């Protein structure tokens, strides 16, 4: 097997014994990028100079007998909304085209401290607003399984980079499905941790009560490895949870016999789920049953309200978070003459935000404006309580819930671009999870028309270890995760 095809834990083994150097792992990524990036277009910025410097440093440390973390020398791609000290961070937006953060996001620093080597920054829907990465101000990313299809979004660049072998692993962020849906569409494992499990410090905010950072990986073991690196309390993020972090790789082999699984009825049999995708999930349920999981149907009566609820709450938080872009302290400033300071703000913002971002800011401002706040925003927050209570109730009886990650496989580039409602339906299975703050992951479970299908496992708050165990047991009994796109 070639280096660019290996998982992080496979590479870690070779790095540990010295059979492979960190410099070779980095070289393998850039060779692969030379070969396929013109077609995949996953990266907005590449950082070869930094990467090779760091790789040589790690190789020297290892040669000198230094004890290094298991992940030392593993290449990683970072979504371009994670702040990287001295490396441009655009958020896929013209407004931050020239922004160079003066500090590292906590997850970037943790990856660095764990010896991981950043290959570059990946493409995304502008400010993470989208489900196809087509909303990027800079480029369209192709799905390595079919370059005419989208990789999903908003972490589409991270997903495409890992699926194409341009990076061994990647981080993304997930506000309504932005890690899990691209992981599903690109045949990867993607984890949306519990709200608060991972520090958001240095993650450029979209909707602060929903955003979480998580890994996109080639298999479950890699996802556990990455979760060990990025999880845990951070004094720089007051919403990061002060809760012990289990050893996710150490507990991976736990037997799942006798675990109770709930089939999230409305999210599997509801409107909009492609019948072929549904069938694939049913087969996965059967496979898990063979492994000893006991399944029952679970009603999620409020799940259908997730979309309207999300499309009030997310824009509301977005309008507040994105108020900071005023063309004064950083970001784009208009060259047009302005009549006063407000005119300067308004022109700068309208020029540099893309159409979807402008729209969500206006929507959010509207639902928060005087006279509408109670009727719209507060109502949505109450419905959020009902959606969350469906999950709370389910987790009294079940260890996890299962449904598809995405209602369809990857769709064609441009196919849904002019159909906002169809695009939003891409997230029907993933959005309830963010509203409830719970952890969920997507794991490959088959193919429809040659394109990957992912199943979503959802758990009670801070039960990522259980979800990873179930996903690992399933994965080890199948070989979906060993398939690679024929780029």
């Amino acid at each position, binding site marked *: 097997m070639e280096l660019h095809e290996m998982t992080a834990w496979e590479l870690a083994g070779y790095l540990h014994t010295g059979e492979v150097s960190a410099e070779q792992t980095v070289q393998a990524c850039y060779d692969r990028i030379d070969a396929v990036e013109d077609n995949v277009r996953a990266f907005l910025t590449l950082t070869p100079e930094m990467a090779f410097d760091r790789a040589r440093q790690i190789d020297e440390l290892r040669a000198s007998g230094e004890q290094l973390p298991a992940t030392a020398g593993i290449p990683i791609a970072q979504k371009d909304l994670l702040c990287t000290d001295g490396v441009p961070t655009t958020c896929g937006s013209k407004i931050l085209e020239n922004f160079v953060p003066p500090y590292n996001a906590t997850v970037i620093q943790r990856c660095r401290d764990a010896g991981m080597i950043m290959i570059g920054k990946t493409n995304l829907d502008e400010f993470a607003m989208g489900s196809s990465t087509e909303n990027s101000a800079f480029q369209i990313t192709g799905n390595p399984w079919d370059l005419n299809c989208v990789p999903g979004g908003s972490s589409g660049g991270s997903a495409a980079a890992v699926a194409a072998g341009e990076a061994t692993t990647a981080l993304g962020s997930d506000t309504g499905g932005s890690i899990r849906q691209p992981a599903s569409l690109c045949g990867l494992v993607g984890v949306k941790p519990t709200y608060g499990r991972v520090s958001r410090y240095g993650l450029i905010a979209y909707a602060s009560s929903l955003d979480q950072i998580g890994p996109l990986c080639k298999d479950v073991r890699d996802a556990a490895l990455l979760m060990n690196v990025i999880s845990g309390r951070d004094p720089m993020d007051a919403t990061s949870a002060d809760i012990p972090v289990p050893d996710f790789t150490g507990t991976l082999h736990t037997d799942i016999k006798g675990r109770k699984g709930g089939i999230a009825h409305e999210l599997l049999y509801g409107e909009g789920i492609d019948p072929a995708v549904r069938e694939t999930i049913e087969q996965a349920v059967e496979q898990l049953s063979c492994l000893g999981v006991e399944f029952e149907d679970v009603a999620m009566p409020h799940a259908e309200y997730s979309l309207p609820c999300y499309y*009030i709450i997310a824009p509301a938080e977005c309008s507040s978070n994105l*108020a900071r872009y005023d063309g004064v*302290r*950083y970001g784009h400033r208009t060259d047009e003459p302005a009549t006063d300071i407000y005119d300067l703000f308004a022109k700068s913002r309208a020029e540099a935000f893309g159409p979807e971002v*402008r729209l969500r*800011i206006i929507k959010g401002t509207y639902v928060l404006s005087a006279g509408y706040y109670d009727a719209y925003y507060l109502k949505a927050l109450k419905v959020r309580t009902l959606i969350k209570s469906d999950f709370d109730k389910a987790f009294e009886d079940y260890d996890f819930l299962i449904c598809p990650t995405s209602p369809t496989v990857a769709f064609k580039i441009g196919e849904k671009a002019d159909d906002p409602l169809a695009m939003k339906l891409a997230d029907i299975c993933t959005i309830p999870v963010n509203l409830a703050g719970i952890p969920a992951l997507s794991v490959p479970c088959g193919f429809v028309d040659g394109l990957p299908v992912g199943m979503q496992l959802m758990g009670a708050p801070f039960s990522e270890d259980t979800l990873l165990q179930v996903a690992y047991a399933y994965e080890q009994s199948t070989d979906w995760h060993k398939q690679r796109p024929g780029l």
Partner: protein
Amino acid sequence: MPEVTLDEVRHVAELARMALSDEELERVRRELNRIMDYFAELQQLDTEGIGDTSHAIPMTDVYRQDEIGDSLPAAKIVQNAPDSIENFFRVPTFMEEE
């Protein structure tokens, strides 16, 4: 449900500090009416006596020692400004003429 008017959109765009063309004001108006549809869907649910969830995971205030730490270097921050002078952000002068 009453339709959102163009004047309302203009007002909201002003609140959001967003200079929109007439064409876009109309696009936004249509999209805002879609929010009304969402609202209508949510209205079907009885939420009498239901609390609101702004954060899904319960959290209490987090305290820390009030200690002086290192600040980011001002020069590095100002580098990102569209216009600056020394370590200050510079904006155009707007003076009302008599």
